[in-house]
């Protein structure tokens, strides 16, 4: 007989409630492997904590989202939002699937070029583009999405001496009936600023207005907003066609589709509440198809989804450091990854699963990271079985934003592993080292340590 795991003795308050049809189980299941690779082996080989990405899941997400749009609309193009996860291996998976690149800084632009994305398949967004960055983008025939009039003027100056026209798009913000109103990026639709901007682009004769762009928010829980946004962009495109005699080649609806993570403070789990990509696709494409464009004039539809394509393909594996009982009597679990690594724990109640068999008794507990900082809370309350130091846990749906917004703070950032479709793990980013962190540092001679 197998030796049963040791479990600390505990005392639990008796809840004398009525039994429900789900029994008393918490529903938590152990997650012992990811895509067929044992969690234990992964931690043994790559250390703890470690991020794990599933290539199979990324591709599956991409394909099903692309299918949702491309079976409803004739010209669909995805552009991978670099800021969501710009590990080169991840970007390459998306580029292999056919994604363009959507970047928001010169740094990301260079990454995209380095990943072999042709210049004319890079969308350059964002409010902060330097003169030199714009020059490079113009040279490479990239799509420059203009955010404000300063940028527009800058582009007009840069294009003075050029023979060809740089291809640009206008970013538009608008009221889509949701709160908060995103009006800090681009030109406003309702007050006519967007129309002024696009007329200025066309009248200049120096820039080629290729598209219109909007990005109405993030983690959007309603599909209606996209219908309104698509309608307003179509209206601009149609006016542009009829009044300025210029055909808009593409409409970029941005991203903002939610993953199935549960937002903090949400009453029901994300799985049950967020609309699917199909729902968004239906609203956006039917608005575009029914707006009244002639078949051959239908603008290409670009989508810059990030989160929804990668969030559930990412896992964070970690190890229990200690158990604690707080003064209130609440149980606390200390794990070896903190908010510096799992940045999204500020936004979501991440699902955490034990990576080994456990006894069926649950207790509500708080999960703390290893940082010596009060903010380092991974979960404020979660029902988990009792775990021992050295036990391993898996945090789910962490693929988006963590591997770009993480910071080196107190501890070093962990390795990232990609499991390919043949279930082979590949190290795609190694553990940070002290040398890597100190490499750009300089010490004045008078401060050097005496040896």
């Amino acid at each position, binding site marked *: 007989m197998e030796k049963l795991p040791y479990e600390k003795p505990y005392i639990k308050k008796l809840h004398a409630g009525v039994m429900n049809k789900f029994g008393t189980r918490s529903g938590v299941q152990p997650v012992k492997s990811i895509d067929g690779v044992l969690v234990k082996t992964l931690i043994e080989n790559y250390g703890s904590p470690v991020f794990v990405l599933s290539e199979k899941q990324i*591709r599956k997400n991409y394909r099903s989202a692309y*299918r949702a749009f491309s079976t409803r609309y004739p010209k*669909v193009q995805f552009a991978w939002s670099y800021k969501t996860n710009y590990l080169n291996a991840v970007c390459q998976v998306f580029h292999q699937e056919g994604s363009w690149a959507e970047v928001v800084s010169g740094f990301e632009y260079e990454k995209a070029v380095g990943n072999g994305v*042709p210049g004319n398949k890079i969308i350059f967004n964002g409010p902060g583009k330097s003169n030199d960055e714009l020059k490079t983008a113009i040279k490479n025939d990239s799509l420059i999405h203009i955010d404000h009039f300063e940028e527009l003027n800058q582009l007009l100056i840069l294009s003075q001496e050029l023979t060809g026209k740089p291809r640009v798009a206008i970013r538009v913000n608008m009221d889509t009936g949701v709160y908060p109103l995103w009006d800090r990026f681009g030109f406003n639709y309702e007050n006519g600023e967007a129309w002024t901007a696009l007329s200025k682009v066309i009248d200049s004769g120096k820039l080629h207005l290729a598209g219109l762009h909007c990005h109405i928010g993030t983690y959007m829980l309603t599909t209606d907003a996209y219908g309104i946004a698509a309608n307003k962009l179509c209206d601009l495109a149609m006016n542009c066609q009829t009044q300025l005699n210029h055909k808009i080649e593409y409409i970029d609806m941005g991203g903002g589709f939610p993953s199935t993570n549960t937002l903090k403070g949400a009453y029901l789990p994300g799985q049950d509440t967020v609309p699917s990509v199909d729902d968004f696709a239906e609203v956006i494409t039917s608005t575009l198809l029914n707006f009244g464009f002639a078949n051959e004039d239908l603008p290409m539809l670009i989508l810059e989804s990030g989160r929804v394509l990668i969030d559930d393909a990412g896992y964070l594996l970690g190890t229990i450091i200690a158990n604690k009982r707080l003064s209130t009597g609440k149980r606390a679990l200390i794990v070896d990854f903190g908010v510096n690594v799992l940045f999204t724990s500020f936004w979501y109640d991440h699902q955490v699963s034990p990576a080994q068999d456990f006894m069926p008794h649950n207790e509500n507990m708080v999960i703390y990271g290893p940082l010596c900082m009060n903010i380092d809370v991974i979960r404020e309350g979660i029902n988990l079985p009792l775990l021992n130091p050295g036990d391993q846990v898996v945090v789910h749906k962490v693929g988006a934003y963590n591997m770009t917004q993480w910071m080196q703070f107190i501890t070093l950032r962990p390795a990232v592993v990609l499991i390919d479709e043949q279930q082979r793990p590949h190290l795609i980013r190694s553990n940070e080292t002290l040398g890597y962190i100190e490499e750009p540092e300089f010490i004045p001679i008078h401060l050097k340590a005496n040896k």
Partner: protein
Amino acid sequence: MKQVSAFIKSIVNSYSVLFFSQNRVLGIILLLVSFFNPISGVAGLSCVILSLLVCHLLKFHGDNLQLGIYSFNSLLLGIAFGAFYHVNFLFVIWLITACVMVTFTSVIISNHLAKSKLPMLSLPFILLFWIVLSAANSIFNTGLQQKSSYLLEEIYTGTGNIAGIEASLALALPNLVGLFFRALSAVLFLHSVIAGILISIGMLIHSRIAFSLLIISFITACALNSVTHTYPEGISYYHLGANLMMAAVAIGSFFTIPSLRSYLLAVLSIPLGFITINGLTGFMSVHALPIFSLPFCIVNIGMLCLLLQRKWTGKLQLAHIQHYSPERNLYQYLNQEQRLNDLKYIRLNLPFMGYWTVSQGYDGNITHKGDWGQALDFVITDDEQNTYQYPGTLPEHFYCFNKPVLACADGIVEAVVSHVEDNAIGKQNLKENWGNTIVIKHLNGLYSKVSHLKKNSIKVKPGELVKQGDLLAQCGNSGRSPEPHLHFQLQVTPYIGSKTLRYPFAGYFNKINGKNLLESYAIPADGLLISNAEVNSPLKKAFDLQPGYTAKLVDSNSLGQYWEVFKDPLGQLYIYCKTTGAAAYFINNGSMFYFTSFYGDKQSLLYKFYLAAYKVIFNDAEDLVINDNLPLHLTHSKALLWLQDIIAPFYRFMDISYRGNVLTKKNGLSIISKQYTIIGKKQTQTTEASVYIDHGSLQSFNITINGEHTEATWSTEN
């Protein structure tokens, strides 16, 4: 300068066209050979020049003049005049008169017969020369003095005696070989082995196929005579050459695409020729007129008339586009047979967006049976081949449910049914088995039908005009449909429930293991994952060459060549090089650009571009390989080609294949193409080229043909 060279070209063409050729070498040989009888030579050449001048004066311009069609009968007339009459003052007068008459007659007869797609051959000459002969023999004083020579005797009676130097040469050669050469020379009213040898060389250079037919017809005629003894003293060499052999070459290789069947037809023309010659000789001897090549005209025009009556052309094809070379006619025909489906079918697109799977193909084992066999069912599947999302208990769970259904081509909505309820999953409605359905009329006798649509989702009404790609309805689950799917079929009658018609889609992507394959004019098989071809707009824009498009190309020596795009009277587009006079015909069907034929100077940049961008698909997927074949006459291994030419009507052992793909560059993209000569299993790369495209326009191209490198850039002036 240009006009002078064009004029000289028409003179040479007037000679070569006698043997159905535009070959300059053959033309010059014939010109020289005609001077074997100096008077004939001078008279012939003057007649050609005179009739060309007359046509110029009367502004009968165009191809017929350039090709020598209007002037070759004058040539025959001049040669005959020289052969028949002594030169004197009246000879010149009547020669000029007759020449002008024959030119007019040529213009009239050729244009009238052309309406019935028939050639005039040497009819004007025969008619006019009969008039001249009758006039000379009449009671009035015409002043023409007839020669007496063995040639005339031969022409009049069919028996002539050989004399002079020719006789010794004729005797030195085996009987039949000598006869062969003499027969050939008879076309120019000569009786000379040397002339025949020279003409043979010219013919061999012009066409191996035509030359082989000369030999075949010669042997057949001699063999037939040895069996029938129609001519106990041997066939007259004049009739052998001017009637029997020429008739066989014309019908076997010029008016038809050379093939086994055309060769059989050529052999058949020999006995027809025999009987026509004999009959006409008897008939015309009453009037003391020789029949010349009238049997040749009658046999050929008669056979062509008959062939034109056919409703189904079968395997014996007429040469509709005449390249004046049997080889080129054959190779171009074979090549276009394979490539020009755009002109045979209407362009049918798939009736949906994105990638769908064929769940039941033609003659499927579920419902596509018998008369209703030529239909397709489509569904959407995911990577695990499921057609639905868990749990799949409602139509809404199925990927294809509620997806847009499109018009496959332009047409008029014929019938609509939209009231049938969508079934629950697993249930079928056998009473209204087609469910909600739309029938569209594309042409008289060509209708498409989509069925099992969603209830009340149909957006069109009967009588409405729809364009290709217009939204018709949403995919549903009505009728005989246990789970949502789209049924598509073509039919010849407008009724719902009509039997089906086999008809290919113009072009679609077939995705196998994540890689796309472009299928052109094909019918997708069961289980394939297909979509309409995705189009890369910059690439499409670059090749959107509309009439009026002009470009200046600059080569590495910074010499410019000017191009312009025109549309011909048949609506075909071509690029015309104003600098070199070359023309390249192309088709742009919206998803690809391809050249169909090239005419003119092979040193021109246009020819290089024709090879470099022979076929371009408007898609930038690097793994998408374009395969095609070039017509064989473009090969660079000329020696092998001659071998191939001889047997080409029956068997082709050579092939020139073209392979292209797109390479994405940091800026823009390049179309990389290679050409291979394939002989058996051995393939040799002959050509490598790349065309560079940026900012949606053609920028430059380079091509290396057998080590010879050419580069050209589009000048930015336009």
